[in-house]
């Protein structure tokens, strides 16, 4: 918990880092939400350890109260407590899967864009073919082949989400490749490697990082969907999808709170990431940046 004295400087730092104008409190709130959730889920094992398999059959389906902030589920487990751990798993899956997708997409898109010609055509047709299949179906197929586990879920998400990244990187490289400033660099004596590292990559990387950030919420949702279908993580492991899945049974018995906390957490976190990513995109968008150019 940040005490009151540290708050103004934190706001101030956030403002100057993100080049905020007064009134853009939404971005600050989103940042604080994300900071709190990420820090909370990282530190949780130290301050609030959870035994994943523990049950308390004498405390099932308790409504939210001061002892159980978000109530308890069918097996008497504290929903708030498990939601923190669920987010931890979901964010881990989201971040790692987004990274896998970015690397894969970056390499494929980069090769297609740089080499062009037949290589480009073949690679992009493969991308189109995979993109034509429903993500979730493909994800289910991958998990089914690898048997449900953390690694399988990450693979499932990563292997289905690299397509858009590949397209972004390819189009970026293609549009850069024929720009006169690349010609000028070649004319000035720059070699292939230097053009790639000094003139192409620095332009592609911010877009790539942005694509990764925007992918995290997608990946979190994908994991949730898989777990909800019972294909994700082992049932005793707290993940947001597992919890929502468990909670749907409780809904019928009137224990609506069992799905509420994990559902709310996923919405809030997704929203916070989206707000920050949108702000970040605006900063890289040359049209926005050029606004003040006379």
């Amino acid at each position, binding site marked *: 918990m940040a005490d009151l004295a540290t708050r103004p400087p934190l706001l101030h730092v956030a403002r100057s880092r993100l080049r905020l104008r007064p009134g853009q409190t939404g971005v600050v709130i989103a940042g604080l939400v994300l900071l709190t959730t990420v820090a909370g889920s990282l530190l949780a094992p130290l301050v609030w350890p959870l035994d994943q398999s523990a049950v308390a059959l004498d405390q099932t389906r308790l409504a939210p109260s001061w002892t159980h902030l978000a109530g308890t589920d069918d097996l008497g487990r504290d929903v708030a407590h498990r939601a923190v751990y669920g987010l931890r798993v979901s964010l881990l899956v989201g971040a790692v899967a987004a990274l896998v997708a970015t690397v894969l997409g970056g390499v494929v898109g980069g090769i297609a864009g740089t080499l062009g010609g037949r290589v480009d055509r073949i690679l992009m047709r493969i991308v189109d073919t995979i993109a034509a299949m429903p993500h979730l179906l493909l994800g289910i197929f991958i998990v089914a082949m690898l048997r449900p586990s953390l690694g399988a879920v990450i693979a499932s998400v990563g292997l289905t989400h690299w397509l858009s990244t590949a397209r972004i990187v390819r189009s970026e490289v293609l549009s850069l490749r024929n720009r006169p400033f690349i*010609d000028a660099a070649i004319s000035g004596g720059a070699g292939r490697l230097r053009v790639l590292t000094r003139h192409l990559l620095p332009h592609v990387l911010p877009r790539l990082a942005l694509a990764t950030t925007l992918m995290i919420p997608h990946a979190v949702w994908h994991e949730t969907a898989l777990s909800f279908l019972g294909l994700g993580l082992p049932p005793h492991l707290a993940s947001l999808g597992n919890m929502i899945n468990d909670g749907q049974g409780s809904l019928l018995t009137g224990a609506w709170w069992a799905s509420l906390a994990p559902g709310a957490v996923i919405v809030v976190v997704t929203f916070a990431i989206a707000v920050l990513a949108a702000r970040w995109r605006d900063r890289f968008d040359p049209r926005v940046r050029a606004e003040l150019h006379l």
Partner: protein
Amino acid sequence: MTSTPHLLADEVTVGYGRQVVLDRVTVRIDRGETVGLRGPSGCGKSTLVRVLALLHQPDQGRVSIDGTAVSAVRYAVPVALRTRVAALFQSPRAAADPRLSLTDLIAEPLRATRTPEAAVRERVTELADLVGLTADLRSRRPHAVSDGQLQRACLARALVHRPDYLLCDEATAMLDASTQAHVAAVIRDYQLAQQAGVLVISHDQTLLERWSDRIVDLAGTAPART
């Protein structure tokens, strides 16, 4: 044909798809002279510059520098040969990496060829002075300077390797009269001092007459569109 060293596009033909852009075009630029080139838009003036700057492979014909035929293009051309021909384009915004400060922009070709940093700094200062960029401007990035200031930085970059040939593709078309005269004066002085060959492409007849030693018409050698 033995004479002054020259840059030559010999019977060059270039087409994109079915459309022929340059049809057996021959242009010769001697060291020490400024050749003006005019022709309607779409007649392939910019393509000719890319061919002469060894950036585009002609379908037929060849380019030679001081009598040596060069069949490679882009990265395949030895650096020592590549840097003897420099080009200055119409839009300085498109020709400048938006991430680099003007100093880094001018220094880039030197760093790309592994020049010692002290020598880089000395040469960049010399050139920035030559094109009249104030110290305040040099640390700025392209989006914070005007077209005219950016084109002067691009000119400095083009001269950084002391090229024997300089190709100016409508290089002053977007500039105001004062900057145009300034850029032309710098190029003129350089051309005289280095005995360089300069190709000036422009739609402005008055400018060509004032600036170049002789004027070549491209319209006569290339077919019109379609």
